[in-house]
Structure formats: C-alpha cells, structure tokens
C-alpha cells in the first residue's frame, strides 16, 4: 500500500509507521467496539496514514461525518470524535453529546481525539457547555508532517500563510518545529540548519529551544539528513503566482489535487466496453490517486507538459509491442510467461489510458487563446517587460469580468516583479477592481497589501531586475524536452526559492550575500552538535541529503524543480521536501481573500 514512500533516498515508511502505531495505541485505550465521528477535513490526511482495514482491526465498526443533531444509532461501546481543535466543531460535538439518549442501554462512551493538538480553549468551551465530563479519554494525535510521497511531506495546514502574515499567529510554526523534532527522533539530528526569512528564524529558534529543554531527546540514530533548509514563503512571493507548466502542476492548477487525489470530469473516462457507452455516461467526477507508486506517473509528473505527449506515445508503442508478443508465444512455457506478465501489462495499459485522457483534457485548456494570452503576460512580467504601467490584458480581463482570483494573481505578479506598483498604477487597478467586482473587496485588497503581494513602490529603486539577473531567474533558451536547468518548470522562469536551494548547495550563499539582503527577513546558519560516534564520513561520490522546508506552502512546480536537481548527475545533493501546505496560485490567493457573506439572493 505504501511502497512509494520507501522508494526515495529517505525511507518515509518509518514516519507513516510511527503515525499508525500512535493511532493504534489510542484506539486500544478505548476497549470494545467503536464508531469514529470524523471532522471531514481530516479524512483526507488520515487516509495517507491508515486505511479502513487498520481501524477495523481495532474494532472500529462504523464511521460517520461530524454534523449537528442526534448521532446515528450504531450499536457500539465507544464513540470517538476525531477533530481539529476548532470552536465551531466543539459546538457540533456538544450538540451530539447532549442529544444522546441517556436511557439507552448499554450506554455509549465518548472520547475525543484532537488533531494535531489538544486545545485548552476547546476543552474549556466543552466544559462551559457541561459536556466535558462526558469524555472518558481526551487525547491528542500529533499529525504534523504527513508523508505524501517518497520525498514529500506536508502538514496540510491550509491557513498557515495567512495566519503567519496577516494574523501574526505563529501556531503553525510551532507545529512545524514539533514535526521537525519528530522527524529528528526518527531520522537522527540534522547537523546543519540554514534558513531565510522571519518564520524560518522562529522555527530554528524553537527547534534549538526544544532540544535544550528535552536533553533526554539526544538520540543515537545515525543522521539521515545532512542539511535542513528553512524557507519562508514570503521570501519568494513570485513563484506561486505564475502558472505552473509541469504535468502535475497543470493538473493542480486546473483541477486541484487534494491529498494526492484529483477529481476529473467524467466524460473522457467513459465506460470501457463498447456497446455499453452512450446511454449512461457517468456523471460523478472520476477520482484518481496520483503518486509515484504509478510508474508512468512518476516518469511524467515533473516534465514540462510539452514533453508529456512524446512519452505517452513511446509508452503506447512499448505496450503494444508487449501485447504483440503473444503472437510469438508458441510453446506452453512462453504462453505461460506471457500470461504471468498480463496483470502488470494491464495495469500499465489502464495507467496509460488515464494519463492520455488527462493530457487531452489539459491540452484543450493550454491550447486555448486565453491561456496563451495569460501566459504571455505572466512571462513578460517575469522577464521584466512593461511592469511599470497598466497592462492592457489585465484591463480587458476586468472589463470582461474574468474570475477575480485570476485578476488578483496577475496584478500581484506585476507588483512583485516591479518591487511594488507605481501609486498611480496601483490606484487604477484598485478602482477598476472595486467598481467591477464590488467595493467590499477592499478588504481582500487590504489583506494582499498586508501580505506584501500588492504594494505601492516605496523607493524609486526596483530591486527585481537585480535579483532576476543575479539569480538567473529568467532563462531565454529553455529546453522543455531535455531540460538542463530548473527554469523548464515554468518554461523560462526559474523559481527563486529553488534557485536559493541550488546556490546553497553550490557554491554557497556567501556568493549571493547582496541579493539575500534584498529579500525579506534574516538569513542564518546553525549547527547542531552530534556525538562523535555519529559524525558522518562521506563515501566518495555519495550524495548529501537536504530537507527543504517551505513555510507557508510549496507548488508542484517547485517540487519538480527540486526533483530535477536531485537527479542531476553531478548535482551531489538529493532533496526531500516538506511544507505546511501544497498550494497553487489560486488556492493561495483564495486563502488570503476575505470571506464575504454570500449575496442575499
């Protein structure tokens, strides 16, 4: 089930195993048959840790979604609530508990499991409602870093960026530090810590402090990671705003990947049998899991979309040839061998069918005029063309009332690429947006300003060109088919965050001191002492392992760029990626928008 987690340089199955063990221990505390009531948001992340079968082995007989009203009549001894510590959820739980029929026999026991942390406020709230005493076990399940793939961990904390930059609430950083401590307990102390940005500094401080406070935590595990690189999202606000052009990035941009699953329009996935088709086309979206367990997906996910077609066609030939083999199978032995390969071939065929369909869906969009126009404007901004005046295309999009998020992405991109907009330009955009989409969006614009995504140019100097040139963020000769630089993931733009990681590995940050000073927040280096026995003697030619932690979110294109660096022959460094949340420009801007009441009609 989780083979893909052990495929990378660091075996992340151990982390998943630790999570499962903790879950089993909690379940066993509540003896007897159980029903779990789920905070719906948690089912996705939990699904990456455990399947229903594990819960079933521990006598979980029923599962429900948390909602107000009377709990379903399940004949179980225990009812366990799996919830995030949110006050609104406490209200629903209270309602559930108060409506429980006290007369029923045998009575059901209540328990509550907070994910990822118990909350004093929540418990106090339950107490005020007079139900706290109804819970026999109140526990916490620290689901901080969830393994998504062999080289990818996420906290799936949706609002981390917003909390850190708009609300000065750094709880998510505290959880990040906790997660890193868990990781070190399993994979050894990470000897070197680098960081850039205010949040990075905080996390590093907390880690050092936690280590000091629990001297017993000094472990004797040989360190797997050589380096930890902590990066603030606000050091690189540009990258998530640009449209990702890798296969996986585009799937996420267009359909949105949630906990490794994507929901696709069903039309292209019509029933397989001819004759059956036509009548009952499925109306429910097709749901697919995307991870490196699927051989074909692992091969194409990080490619530029323009290079995907040729791989698919090559695959098609190989598979056809493999099936062709059966004509040459003459002897019983040969036939037997052919048959034994059939399941594998069939899986490959259905995988190919799925990705061909997805590629077709994406192709329809990437070949559209509007996608092209949008991309052209993005690329102009990123390469520094006409960033200082009102852009015609943006103006047209507003006039045609394109989705507001699309407009905001472009305007923010322009602002970031110009180190802030001229006051006149900014005022013009704001006025157009407010007049067309409604004045209440002044709140959202204010949030974007606070986050630094949209701002007036303060000094007369625009730093972006210097940053772009020094870090080589724009590459004119990009090779999409056989890339030689990370800029292929955005067909020209090399993500700033990944460039920082690349330059840290070679030749080191000292070479770019000047640029680092232009980017927000401090940059720093810390060392964690290892006992002499654990110090690593590197074998010749052995790669270093660096954990890059993106505080505030990371895009699939950035992940692709880091994977590209891992695979470079003379790269010398392999990367594992951790983040507070997997994001794209749309989901990111959405998280920063003011929640407006639905219109009254």
């Amino acid at each position, binding site marked *: 089930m989780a083979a893909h987690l052990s495929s990378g340089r660091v075996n992340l199955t151990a982390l998943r195993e630790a999570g499962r063990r903790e879950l089993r221990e909690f379940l066993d505390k509540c003896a007897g048959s159980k029903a779990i009531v789920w905070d719906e948001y948690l089912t996705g992340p939990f699904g990456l840790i455990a399947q*229903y079968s594990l819960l079933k082995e521990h006598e979980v*007989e029923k599962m429900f979604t948390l909602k107000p009203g009377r709990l379903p009549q399940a004949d179980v001894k225990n009812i366990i609530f799996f919830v995030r510590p949110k006050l609104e959820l406490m209200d629903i739980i209270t309602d559930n508990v108060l409506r429980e029929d006290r007369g029923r026999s045998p009575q059901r026991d209540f328990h509550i499991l907070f994910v990822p942390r118990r909350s*004093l406020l929540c418990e106090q709230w339950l107490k005020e409602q007079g139900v706290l005493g109804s819970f026999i076990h109140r526990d916490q399940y620290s689901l901080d870093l969830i393994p998504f793939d062999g080289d990818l961990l996420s906290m799936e904390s949706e609002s981390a960026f917003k909390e850190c930059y708009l609300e000065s609430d750094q709880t998510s*950083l505290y959880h990040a530090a906790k997660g890193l401590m868990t990781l070190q307990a399993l994979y050894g102390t990470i000897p070197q810590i680098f960081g850039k940005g205010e949040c990075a500094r905080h996390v590093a401080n907390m880690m050092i402090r936690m280590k000091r406070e629990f001297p017993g935590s000094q472990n004797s595990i040989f360190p797997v990671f050589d380096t930890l690189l902590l990066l603030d999202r606000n050091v690189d606000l540009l990258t998530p705003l640009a449209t990702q052009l890798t296969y996986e990035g585009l799937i996420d941009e267009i359909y949105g990947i949630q906990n490794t699953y994507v929901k696709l329009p069903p039309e292209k996935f019509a029933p397989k049998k001819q004759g059956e088709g036509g009548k009952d086309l499925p109306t429910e979206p*097709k*749901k697919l*899991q995307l991870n490196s367990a699927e051989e074909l997906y692992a091969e194409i996910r990080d490619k530029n979309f323009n290079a995907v077609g040729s791989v698919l066609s090559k695959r098609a030939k190989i598979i056809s040839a493999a*099936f062709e083999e059966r004509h040459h199978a003459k002897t019983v032995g040969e036939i037997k061998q052919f048959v034994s390969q059939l399941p594998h071939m069939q899986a490959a065929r259905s995988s190919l069918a799925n990705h061909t369909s997805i590629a077709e869906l994406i192709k329809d969009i990437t070949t559209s005029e509007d996608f092209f126009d949008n991309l052209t404007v993005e690329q102009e901004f990123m390469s520094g063309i006409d960033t200082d005046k009102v852009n015609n295309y943006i103006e047209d999009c507003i006039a045609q009332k394109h989705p507001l998020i699309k407009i905001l992405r472009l305007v923010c991109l322009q602002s970031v690429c110009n180190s802030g907009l001229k006051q006149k330009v900014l005022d013009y955009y704001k006025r157009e947006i407010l007049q067309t989409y409604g004045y209440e969006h*002044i709140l959202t614009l204010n949030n974007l300003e606070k986050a630094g995504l949209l701002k007036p140019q303060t000094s007369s100097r625009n730093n972006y060109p210097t940053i772009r040139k020094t870090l080589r963020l724009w590459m004119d000769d990009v090779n999409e088919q056989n890339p030689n630089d990370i800029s292929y993931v955005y067909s020209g733009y090399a993500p700033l965050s990944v460039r920082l990681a690349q330059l840290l590995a070679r030749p080191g940050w000292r070479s770019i001191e000047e640029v680092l000073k232009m980017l927000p927040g401090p940059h720093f280096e810390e060392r964690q002492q290892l006992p002499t026995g654990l110090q690593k003697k590197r074998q010749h030619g052995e790669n270093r392992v660096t954990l890059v932690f993106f505080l505030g979110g990371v895009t699939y294109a950035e992940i692709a760029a880091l994977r590209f660096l891992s695979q470079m022959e003379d790269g010398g460094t392999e990367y594992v990626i951790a983040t507070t949340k997997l994001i794209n420009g749309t989901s990111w801007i959405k998280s920063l928008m003011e929640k*407006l009441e639905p219109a009254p009609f």
Partner: protein
Amino acid sequence: MSRARADEEEYWHSSKFRAFTFDDEDDELSQLKESKRAVNSLRDIVDDDDDDLERVSWSGEPVGSISWSIKETASSSSSSLESRDSSLQKGSSSYAAFPKQVSSYSLSSLFKGELCLSLSALSDTGAKNYAPELRRPKAEYKDYSSDWSPKDTVKRMQRGKVCSLERFRSLQDKLMLLDEAVAGHDGNVITAVILMCFTHLYLSLLPVEILFRELEVRQVALCHLIHFLKETGEQKLLLDLLRLCFFSLSLQLSQYREHLNIQDVEKRREFLKGCIGLPFSAEDTSHIQDHYTLLERQIIIEANDRHLEAAGQSEIFRKYPRKASILNMPLVTTLFYSCFYHYTEAEGTFSSPTNLKKTFKIPDKQYVLTALAARAKLRAWDDVDALFTTKNWLGYTKKKAPIGFHRVVEILQKNNAPVQVLQEYVRLVEDVETRLNLATKYKCHDVVIETYRDLKDRIQLTAYKCKVERGSAEEEKINSILSNMVRNTSS
C-alpha cells in the same frame, strides 16, 4: 487454426495498423491521439474486469480507504448523507451565534462607571469561558503544583496539561507569563494566557491604560486577542479594544467589514454612512464614500423600478422582467442595469447612465463597454451607432471608439448582431490584418472583398470566390472587380 489466423488478422487491422498511422497534424496532438488509439485498440484483447490490481470504486476511491468507508458504513445506518451539506451549514451558523452571551459586557460599559455592576457578570462568564482552569479548586487536580515557573507553566499548557494560572497575580507576573507564551509561538496558549490577563486585570481594578500600554508593545499577543475576538464575532468588544489602544492597524477596516453582517439595506446604508467619517487613507475614503453613494442610489432605483415593474405599464419591464434586485451589486453591474432599463433618461435623474458616469467618474472606456453590451443585448443598433458617432465643430460626423473597433465587433458578435450591423464596424477596424481576420471569421463578405480590392490582391480575391455563394451578389462583385483590375493593369 484458421480461427486463430482470423483473430490475428483482426488484431493486425484493429490494433497495430490503426494505432500507428502518422497523420501530418501538429505532432503534439497526434501523439496524444496515437497513444489513445493504441490504448483503445488494446481493449479488445484485454479483459480487465476482474483482475484489476487494486479494487477501485467508480469514484476512484480505493475500496477500503477511509473516506470510502465512511460512506459505506454510514449508508448502512439510518442517517442520510444528503442532509450533510445543509446541516453543516447550520452548524457553522450556530457557531457564529454562540459567544453573544458575553458580548453584553462591553469594555466601554466597564469604563463608564458601570464597572461594579458588570464586574460580577464578567467574572461569571467571560473569565470562566476563556481563561481556562482559572478558578478551579486546587484539590481537583492530582498533578497540581503551585510553584510552576512561567516557563514550566507554558510548557505544560503546550502539552495540553492542566495548570492553574491563579498564582500569577501581579501585573509583572502576568506579563512574564505572557512573554513566555509568546516566545513559545503556540497560539492556543498565547490566547489562553492573554484572555486570563485581560479578564483578571479588570477584576483587580487596575488602571486599564496600563494593561493596554503593555499590550501595545506586545503586538503578537494583541493580534491573538484581536483575532480571537474577530473569530468569535465579538465585534463591539473588538472595536472598543482597538479604539482604546489607539491601535489604528485595522480598526477602520474592521469596522467597515461589519457592514457585511447587516442584511437590512437601510441599516447597511446608515452604517456605511457612519464609516465615511473614519480616518481611512484618502484613497480608501473615496472608495467607501462611493460604496455608500452607490447603495444609496440602488435603494432609490430599486424602490422606483419595483413599483414600475409591478404596475406593468413600462414596456421595457414587461418585455424584459428583472431577474434580480439591483441592491448590493457592483458599480459596473449597476451601470449595465441602468443602460438597459434607463438609457434615455435625462442626466438629472438618479437612474440615468450619464448621471452614474459623472457621479462615480467612470472612465470612458468602461462606460462605452458597458453601454455597448447593454444596448447590443436589446438589439438597439441605433443607440450603438450613436455611441461611436462624434460631431466636430463643422458639423461633420466621425466614428470613434475608445476601446478599439475590434472589441466593438467582438461584443456585437457575442450578442448575435446581424451581418449588416457587424460589417459596418468591421470596416472601421484600422489594422488591415485584424480587419481581414474579423471579416473572414464573421463572414462579412463585402468587407473582405473591398479590402482585397484596395490591396489590389488578385490572388486572394480569386481564392475568396469559393467562399461566397455561387450566383450571389458577392460573387458578381468579385467578378466585376477582377475584370476592372485587369482593365486597369492592361491599360
């Protein structure tokens, strides 16, 4: 044997041959097609119904995953999943309502001499609600110890353990605890501690200015409190706090935000009026002023139009009944509405488009676009014509479009304008290439023909002959131009 051969034949034809024909289309697309065909052709020989490697339900959820199982196990019980969405909504709305019980004790009431009265009330609800374990008898806890240092206390709280905060009596103690909590970055603990300080200091009758001064230098803590009050809908308490702190960071916008919660339009208007006086930046003030003016207008227009529509005497409302009320719509939508229903009204009336344009200083471009879309929708081609006609001082008329005529054509085309109307504007597109493209795309034959004539492009003109109907006036026109061209060149 022969049957096997037949099979083979069929396979040869159905799979290999068809799968790899290379058509000379753009190779990207053909590659996709190719792999799709290959996949399809393989279907016949593979029967993969039974032995899929992993069992997957149609929705793609592997059978046995958690979210699949919830549906599975829940559907066997009596609860119905259909009601889930609505009930969750209900849940969130009930959440919004919960803390109201506390909000009657506002800060300002505490300062206006009602202190003694509300003190007991506050200590009953406020303090107990949000400052955890504040007044529990010591005996309740086995692991209770009275001499936890601030640091230890915070650590215990972070681990979700019970602690008494009672021993932190003096302001100094409380602030130390607060600083410790802030250093720990755990928002949960910070909020708990600050709420304790917040409520407890009132009880000790300490001058509040001191507390607020201390909070002002502790921005992180203050932000947590503000966020908490925001979350729990404690608008009044929040605004009081912000005002007392002279903390302008988000005071005005916080107050402005509140209008979203007011459903009644009259009340909303009043509220917005109150917001205008707040010290926003100059730019923001003008937006908020506009917001207020717009809503004020909308209320007048709405009342008037509802009446007109109900009376049934106005033709436009009979012909095109309104789909929704205009209240709370954006400015541009309102302008569209007014161009649709009130186009000919004199500038003096509130609902006339020109009045809106003046009042809100709507740029020409925006105005023309909106008016064009509205009039085109009504197929009022004369109005469209008038929109682009300007007279100079000699009385000559000239056509001008601030948005460019190619955009005019697009909008007209979207509204199904007849070819005669369309081609009039296609003709006005200045750039020859764009004009030809548009004319060809929308079959404005005359424009195409005339353009080629002006370009003296015989080849294209001859080629275009096959695009027009045989024996039509257009064909004749082409023929006559062609023969004219010959004559001209030969002479």
